[in-house]
């Protein structure tokens, strides 16, 4: 990777930009990155890694569109610094599907019409994955509770809940 700066001729006002070298894994792949400490994890994912499935929809940590898994636990990637990923495993929506197939959550959202514009969907699926990893047989109430940090403006949530329950059924059936 090449980084190019403008040469202003004079000594640029202000200190050198502090950069940190971090090592992390993303969807099972090991990476090294040089980042400014203030870079948000969501921006490392979207711009640094080009994984644009993780979306940003607010600036107050409310909407959950940016939800990823950090060491298997759901986190709002807009409210973490990229440097905090050092030494950790990040999972995004792009890592859900296997080589040939969709993850049952992805299938569930398609089967049960769990999306319209699709913008909140990756965040919903990642939060749901964290739920199902811990509780493979959730009740509807469990699903609503687990997704209460994720907002959707299109669907009214009913089908999102159904999609997650569909996925839970399929995952249990697969053993």
């Amino acid at each position, binding site marked *: 990777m090449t980084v190019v700066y*403008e040469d202003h001729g004079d000594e640029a006002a*202000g200190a050198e930009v502090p950069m940190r070298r971090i090592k992390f894994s993303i969807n099972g792949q090991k990476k090294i990155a040089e980042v400014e400490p203030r*870079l948000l994890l969501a921006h490392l994912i979207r711009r640094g890694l080009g994984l*644009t499935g993780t*979306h940003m*929809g607010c*600036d107050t940590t409310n909407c959950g569109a940016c939800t990823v898994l950090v060491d298997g636990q759901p986190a709002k990637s807009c409210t973490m610094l990229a440097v905090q990923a050092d030494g950790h495993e990040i999972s995004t929506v*792009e890592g859900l599907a296997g080589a040939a197939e969709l993850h049952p959550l992805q299938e569930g959202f398609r089967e049960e019409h769990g999306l319209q*514009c699709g913008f909140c969907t990756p965040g919903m699926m990642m939060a749901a994955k964290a739920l199902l990893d811990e509780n493979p047989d959730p009740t509807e109430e469990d699903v609503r509770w687990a997704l209460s940090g994720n907002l959707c*403006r299109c669907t009214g949530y009913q089908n999102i809940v159904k999609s997650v329950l569909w996925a839970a059924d399929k995952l249990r059936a697969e053993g």
Partner: protein
Amino acid sequence: MSQAVDEIKIGGLGASRKRVEDSRFIRGKGNYTDDITLPGMLHMEILRSPLAHARIKSIDASKAWDIPGVHLVLTGEMMATRNLAWMPTLSYDTQAVLATDKVRFQGQEVACVIADDPYIAKDACEAIDVDYEPLPVIVNPEQAMADGAPVIRDDKENQAGNVIYDWEVGDGAGTDAAFAAADVISKLRLHYPRSHPSPIECCGSIADFNRATEKLTVYMTTQAPHIIRAAVALVAELPEHMIRIISPDIGGGFGNKVPVYPGYVCSILASILLERPVKWIEDKSGNLISTGFARDVYLDGEMALRQDGKILAVRMHTDADHGAFFSDAQPSKFKIGLMHSAFAAYDIPVAHLTARGVYTNKAPGGVAYRCSFRVTEAMFFQERMMQAAADDLGMDQAAFRRMNFVRDEDFPHRTPFGFLTDSGQYAKCLDVGLKAVGYADFRKQQEEARARGRLLGLGISTMTEPLGAGNSREYDILGIKMFDSADLKVHMTGKAILRTGAKTQGQGHETTWAQIVAHELGIPAEDVVVEEGDTDTAPFGMGTYASRSTPVAGAAVAMVSRKIRAKARRLAAHLLEVSEEDIEWELGRFYVRSRTAG
């Protein structure tokens, strides 16, 4: 093949299809505006005013220019030298792109910075020094019309106060006479507060001006790409055929993504000046404080009633809070938008509607959320007045409505506000509803519960909602009639590509339009790819909002499919060596009519 194709099997109308668009969204492979990166792209951030009303004494951007990574700082003064500080609105007003003399709402765009990355652009915005002289702030129509209120739009010649318009429709004198003869007068005052559409995805654009080809390409979160192309041509004075607007995947619209925002205009100018792509993505705070809102209308309503419940006359006065710039939209025929449709369900002999619009120190808008042209406000005010009147009369809510409905035999019916309805069975409709909820039983339950101290409620609301803006006889935006278009190409191998002038933001056009083609032509829906949003390829349309797409663009899809079928009929006759009259059609095939059919 000796039989018609099974329409359900091929995904025609009535078939339940899984959504085509889901495939990319569930994989996180959507293509939203902020997902797009162009070579050499720069990033733009907007500096917004912290004050709602203030004179700008000076803007010092020198420290911003000095920050490494900053390429351009745009101010209103710079925009003004290019005649771009103000732009026209859809309501024949003007709106500031970047503030010059004053800021007129909290959050108004004052300057923007284009830099290597948005972090630096934000740093530079913070380094811009704006010297404001605060002015008194007006936040509602009452304040706007008070004696001595500061004039917000002192930039406009002949703008004496803060009133934008004073319109009326109906018969004032006749209404007054009816009120004078009334047994009961019911009054109601309401405020329908401002609401924000707030899709999860904010607004944004990537403007890319290519100096070598003189072509401007803009990726943009817009529900109406062709309207934007026309607007950009007018505002930026660029030739329309050299402008390409691409609306990619949109994360929710809700009317929020119809207006032309200053951010779009600034990103376009910046790209022209810098000859590099410039991306502007709004943050949610900026969106909430400045985006095209919905509603914010006040009602003063009165109903003249006969003792037995017959409505004799209706008087409505509305005050609309338009914010600092009048950037609503309404068809030329209905000055007060679809407020004209108020009381269309009822047989009102005479009525008078007066509407005033005022400027306040708030963000401009009014057209969002079902892009309603005010129909939502009209229905809300109407039904709340009906409810108040029934209460004032001591009459049952359902009975009151029933006795005042337009009767089946009285269609077509033109309302006192000029609205035309052509058919209906309103009493029957009410009956179906009341039966479904077990109305009579419910009233009994309600009484029993009340005796036990428990309050149960049942509400009735009738609406006549004009959808599908619209028939071009009556609906236009800035004189452009509100039609839509479809373009269908069938390839040699029987696959097809369909493009329309609509723009889906989650409505599922990629799935449903193909079903219409399947229904008309017998081509499997999965063999029809649907594209929308690129003005270089999509036929002209007015975009998607106000529930218009299926009745208008969808109808165009059906019609264009039939044109293809008509053309195919001629070819079939030629290939089957018969005349066209001898060709019959059933889904998926032409065949020669049997002469022996009895």
